[in-house]
């Protein structure tokens, strides 16, 4: 704790404390985020999106109506169509019960949201099924940690 410590010594002493690393990382995030805000006007939105999203409030499947006929073939947009020749939008995969629910009530869209897989929006893009597998694995690992820590002291 000498008063005339060098500049480098001070930096080294600061980042040698674990508690300060969080603040340092947050500072980095803020700097890059500000740079991002500055450069944001120069980034153009690409109109030809691979995974388009449209909202149709009148539909009973609202916010998740992607179009398509159940039990029929629906032409889909995909990066590599040859990898998923039989895929359609999620509406194509409604079971008869879900179809009946969607026809008679207005709650089918919310039912999808309330479904454990439904909060994972990617399930609605059937060409990106691997993402769904990884997302559920993350949830599973997080639950495993939480349950281990919770049950450790009994």
């Amino acid at each position, binding site marked *: 704790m000498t008063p005339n410590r060098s500049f480098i010594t001070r930096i080294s002493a600061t980042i040698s404390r674990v508690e300060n690393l969080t603040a340092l990382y947050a500072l980095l995030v803020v700097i*890059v985020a500000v740079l991002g805000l500055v450069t944001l006007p120069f980034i153009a939105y690409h109109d030809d999106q691979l995974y388009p999203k449209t909202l149709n409030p009148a539909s009973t499947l609202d916010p998740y109506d992607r179009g398509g006929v159940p039990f029929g073939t629906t032409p889909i947009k995909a990066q590599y169509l040859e990898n998923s020749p039989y895929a359609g939008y999620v509406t194509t995969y409604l079971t008869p019960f879900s179809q009946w629910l969607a026809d008679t009530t207005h709650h089918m869209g919310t039912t999808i949201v309330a479904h454990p897989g439904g909060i994972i929006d990617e399930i609605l893009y059937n060409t990106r*099924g691997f993402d769904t597998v990884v997302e559920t694995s993350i949830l599973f690992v997080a639950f495993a940690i939480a349950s281990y820590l919770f049950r450790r002291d009994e």
Partner: protein
Amino acid sequence: MFNLPNPQIGGPELFVLEFGDIVAYFSPYTAVLFAFALLFTVLVIVSRPERQVDIAFGGDAYYTKEVEPDLLRFQRFMAIACGLATLGAMVTGDVFNFTLFASMIGITNIGIVAAYRNRHVLNAAFQYGIVAMLATVPLFGGAAIVLSSTGTLSMWELFTAAVAVPLIAKAFLVLGVMGEGMAPFYIAKAEITRAQGAPFILMVHVSSLLLFLRVMEIVISM
């Protein structure tokens, strides 16, 4: 089926594994990283935890530290999960899929270090948890900017010269991986490497190192 548009960095394409739009690929670069992660996952599966002996100075006394079966089982599970996430992150050919695997590596790293009972280790794990959670913002933000500005997430498209990825998306990706891969700092600071159950800790280092190597390849190729 495909050809890597930019073979200077990863080398020529060797093998492709299709999951719909997500196409995992093995080039010499990713194959080496994959083999390395696979080797360490196998080591974690077969290895036994380190049993430490503390020697009391000034006498003949020493005492051994017990590794609880519960702790061992949980840490081995987390280390294997971390290894599998690393395997996925090494070969995936999709930006969003890569960010998912990166955040899974971050969560399993938290799990490995959070299993201890030492106070200073738990403090470090808590601090790392905050950083890893904060890092998901730039990580997924980077993937979102890539998608909105180019319209695609597939690396096979993004690596071509025709598609220009904004610099800020790359910066966000690197920053996110920095946060998720920051665990070795905390490990070194809290001196967890020599704590009981030592071999599983090494998975944290391996996964962070490989994650950095992979994100560098992605960012340079884009």
